[in-house]
């Protein structure tokens, strides 16, 4: 059944036992994203240290796909450099657009390949991307803040 390709065991596990859920105090930046078509919301705290993703923590409400995807994403990206994280994000976005045509590169995406089936359900792609897009937004803002802080220091 097609449904099983969507709801892989891994996904249901992450859904029931999400990783890094619960906001940590330590953060460089916080973002809040919503999926206006279903009302799902996520708050994500990102801690950047020397161009590294030092920590991600998050909270929010959402379906199994968005919760599992955010759980997998945070576990996967913590400890990576920002540029590594962005290239993983690109890889994942590509997988989501693949319309079921790709199984995903497990070396890069690890557990996130379990979300490959989502690409066959167009209405769910946004669910799978919710946490990733929040991370992307946070990281971009965090870096530009850092950049302007640096510039401030240099100028000051």
């Amino acid at each position, binding site marked *: 059944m*097609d*449904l099983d390709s969507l709801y892989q065991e891994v996904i249901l596990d992450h859904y029931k036992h999400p990783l890094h859920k619960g906001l940590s105090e330590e953060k460089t930046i916080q973002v809040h994203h919503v999926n206006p078509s279903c009302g799902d919301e996520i708050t994500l705290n990102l801690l950047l240290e020397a161009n590294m993703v030092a920590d991600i923590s998050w909270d929010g*409400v959402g*379906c*199994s796909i968005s919760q599992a995807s955010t759980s997998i994403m945070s576990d996967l990206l913590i400890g990576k450099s920002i540029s590594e994280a962005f290239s993983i994000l690109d890889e994942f976005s590509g997988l989501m657009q693949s319309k079921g045509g790709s199984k995903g590169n497990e070396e890069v995406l690890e557990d996130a390949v379990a979300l490959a089936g989502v690409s066959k*359900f167009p209405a769910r792609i946004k669910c799978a991307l919710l946490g990733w897009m929040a991370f992307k937004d946070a990281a971009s803002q965090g870096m530009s803040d850092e950049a302007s802080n640096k510039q401030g220091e240099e100028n000051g």
Partner: protein
Amino acid sequence: MTNSVFDPVALRSDFPIFQRTVRGGARLVFLDSGATSQKPRSVLDAERNFYENHNAAVNRGSYLLAEEANAAYESARQSVADFLNGKFEEVIFTKSATESLNLLAYSFGNSQSSSKFAVKPGDGIVVSEIEHHANLIPWQQLAKRTGAELSWFSVTPEGRLDLSNIDQVITEKTKIVAITHQSNVLGTIIPLAEIVKRAHAVGALVVLDACQSVPHFSIDVAALGIDFLAFSGHKALGPTGIGVLWGRSELLSEMEPFLTGGSMIESVTMTDATWAPIPRRFEAGVPNMAQAVGLEAALKYLTEVGMERVHGHELDLTASALSQISDIPGVKVVGPLDMKDRGGVISFTVEGVHPHDVGQVLDSFGIAVRTGHHCAWPLMRRMNVVGTTRASFYLYNTEDDVVALVDGIRSVQKYFGV
């Protein structure tokens, strides 16, 4: 369509879409008529016949096709007027209920300050917590633009409009009361008469969002005593791209236009324009002629089936579904649990499973429901849910569909191990 017994199974054969199957060959169990309805063949034929035989721009030509197009379009207007028990010139064709409601808000906003439709700082606009965004945001915006104050009826935990403070909500300052006839989430039908009475006592205008009522039970605008009414054709077996604004002629004929352009004018210079009488004043440009003709066919279809029978059938299905669904452990109906003042919409939550996932599993059995906030986000917060799964019924649904839904919900629970 016969006038004898109501047979939804026979009637389904009038709707071509039920000939197709969905996921993995499943029968289509369409329980999302609250979002949009399916179309009978007669509606598609009417539109096609317009294009194939009478297509020309109305109001604009003196040749035969144009005469025929005009006659078809204005006949559609008369049919809508008859369906609502209103008058010909009181029916304005829009593209949707959303446009109809925005038309009102913008027209009021465009009024000269001396006009009785002008909305001023200190004036009140009243809505409710059950509003669809389409009957909430236009009024929020009007309030913001004019300095008027928005206030609202709240909803009881059971999902009824709370009118206990009606005299504090609708006051002497209230100019507009804009309210939904039947909630698209809870199925609740509001105590309209009481609201109309109070609103008119303080001189306020009553705008009825009838998106969920006009398609489902017989509406008589004169008997309801309201001032304006909006509905969408696509929820009433009609085409997409057509909506209706009905308004009392004495009001409409004093109101400012909304969209401006061709056909709505009396005369035009480079710097100024004067307006045509209603209904044309509110229909700028070449209108959605084929869609109006399609809507006429839809209302004719409904009339031939009989609105009482449509309504009765929906109530039967709803009563059956309501009792079966609320009996499932872990499933909670959001909205009234009895059939009093209630239409064919049931929202529910399944403990431990997000609505989106409920919908997905139901879809795998061919069951089409809607999930999420249903464009009624404030209501979701009020009911303390992130969203619901919603099943909505129409004349083509059957008891088999109810069985499929109830079985489907149990499968959802099994699938997610809750």
